């Protein structure tokens, strides 16, 4: 083991943070870049499903909340791309990877937002699941990512509370509004559980990631935590989850839940979700529509530099 390797291992072992100036093994760098980029892509693509409701939000207050949330997501994307850049990644290349479909984003965003209740349920369940995943990442061994996650988690919690508050309002409303919420919960529950990734036995990289301390808990541990957290919230709200096998297990001191349709997850990840093509096509179109603007900005900066 070289000195550099030793220093890396020691830093990890001591639970200290790796910083951009530190030497890291190529595998660590690659894994980290991929993880951060996918997270950044997810924030960017994640703007779309909710963003579609901004123009139609049913009150000005909800419009402002939703717009602020979508803005936060753009901000998250920005921090995260910056964190990836500290590892030598290039933002333009990462964008290219996204719009060409070579790099993935969270497949939850390939599901459609069909009603305004979806906005609330995304806040509650999808952001809730994201927080479960992300809170441990605030202790990621890679410093810039860990710091980005602290800020992001704070904002995500805020979004989650707002989503839940919207749902509480709707559940106090008309039958049509309550139906809208239950329908949205029915559609988002299983995809939310899939957000934690494949079951542990089918997740071969988990061990290395945990050794590197860029992952702190297994997929199944986090998924269980999310279920345990969500069930009482659903009860308080007055909705049910579409899972007849969901029930408290006194022995395990956890909720049991039914089997997840992993084929669906595979299908959606591999491109055949309800909205995959649209999400990527929209992103690609926005990128292409903006090309002349980015080129002009560069040309203008060059002119100014030449004058000086």
């Amino acid at each position, binding site marked *: 083991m070289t000195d550099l390797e030793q220093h890396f291992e020691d830093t990890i072992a001591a639970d200290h943070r790796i910083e951009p100036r530190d030497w890291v093994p190529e595998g660590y760098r690659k894994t980290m870049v991929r993880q951060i980029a996918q997270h950044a892509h997810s924030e960017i693509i994640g703007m779309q499903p909710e963003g579609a409701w901004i123009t139609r939000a049913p009150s000005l207050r909800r419009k402002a909340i939703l717009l602020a949330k979508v803005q936060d997501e753009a901000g998250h994307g920005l921090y995260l791309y910056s964190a990836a850049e500290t590892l030598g990644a290039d933002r333009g290349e990462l964008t290219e990877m996204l719009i060409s479909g070579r790099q993935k984003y969270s497949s939850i965003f390939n599901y459609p937002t069909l009603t305004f209740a979806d906005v609330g349920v995304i806040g509650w369940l999808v952001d809730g699941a994201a927080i479960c995943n992300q809170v441990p990442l605030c202790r990621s061994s890679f410093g810039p990512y860990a710091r980005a996650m602290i800020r992001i988690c704070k904002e995500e919690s805020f979004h989650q509370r707002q989503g839940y508050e919207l749902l509480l309002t709707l559940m106090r409303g008309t039958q049509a509004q309550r139906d809208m919420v239950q329908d949205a919960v029915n559609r988002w529950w299983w995809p939310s559980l899939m957000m934690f990734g494949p079951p542990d036995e089918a997740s071969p990289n988990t061990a290395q990631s945990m050794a590197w301390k860029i992952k702190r808990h297994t997929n199944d541990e986090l998924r269980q935590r999310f279920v345990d957290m969500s069930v009482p919230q659903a009860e308080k709200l007055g909705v049910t989850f579409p899972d007849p096998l969901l029930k408290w297990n006194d022995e395990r001191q956890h909720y049991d839940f039914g089997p997840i349709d992993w084929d669906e997850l595979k299908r959606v990840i591999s491109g055949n979700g309800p909205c995959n093509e649209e999400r990527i096509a929209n992103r690609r179109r926005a990128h292409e529509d*903006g090309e002349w603007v980015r080129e*002009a900005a560069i040309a203008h900066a060059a002119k100014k530099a030449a004058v000086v």
Partner: protein
Amino acid sequence: MNEKAVAYVLRLGDDALVAAQRMAALATWAPQLEEDVALANIALDLLGQARALLTYAGELEGQGRDEDLLAYRRDEHEFTSALLVEQPDTDFAATMVKLLFFSAYQRLLYEELSAGDDETLAAIAAKSVKEVAYHLSHACAWTVRLGDGTEESKRRMQTAVDELWPYTHELFASDSVWRGYGFDPAGLRERWLGIVEPVLAEATLERPVDDWAPTGGRDGLHTEHFGYLVGEMQSLHRAHEGVSW
């Protein structure tokens, strides 16, 4: 009820609301991520202004209409926003030129109103004038960058300037509502030109000649784009009578 005050404040509120609705529709479509953040920020400012102004207009009216009843339950011809703000965002050039023209107008008008007699309106204006000063500087920076960027960006910017310029006259067209309350923006045209012309010059863009000057927005006569904008904005609200969201 002071009808002129209501009409006056509604115009300000409708301007901000329609501008916010247009800008908010661009979320996720900006040419770069930083700009997504900036545009959302501007849209949020405008939406905040709209909410404060519409709420105040409703209070002045005293008929129990709040911001949402005013935004979601009026028909198209009851909105008195200027034609400028409803113009479509055909490309980023149109978005920035519209913002330049509109934020320069808002900055001057809010500045005057912040020193006016109506304390509520003065307070809203004082808060807003800081926001629109940022919008204006953002629009100025992009106008210069794109006007004096590439050949294509110059062409697009000049097209946007030429197409939107006619709609700026309406901002300064006086009438009994403008004269009846607050500050009449008719007097601001020269100062507005004093802001806009140097920016266009620095951007190497031509300042169009003053010719066609369409009006109507202040009397509820809008362009054909407006029906779609209002229809989309109100669709969900109108589909559910009298519920809370």
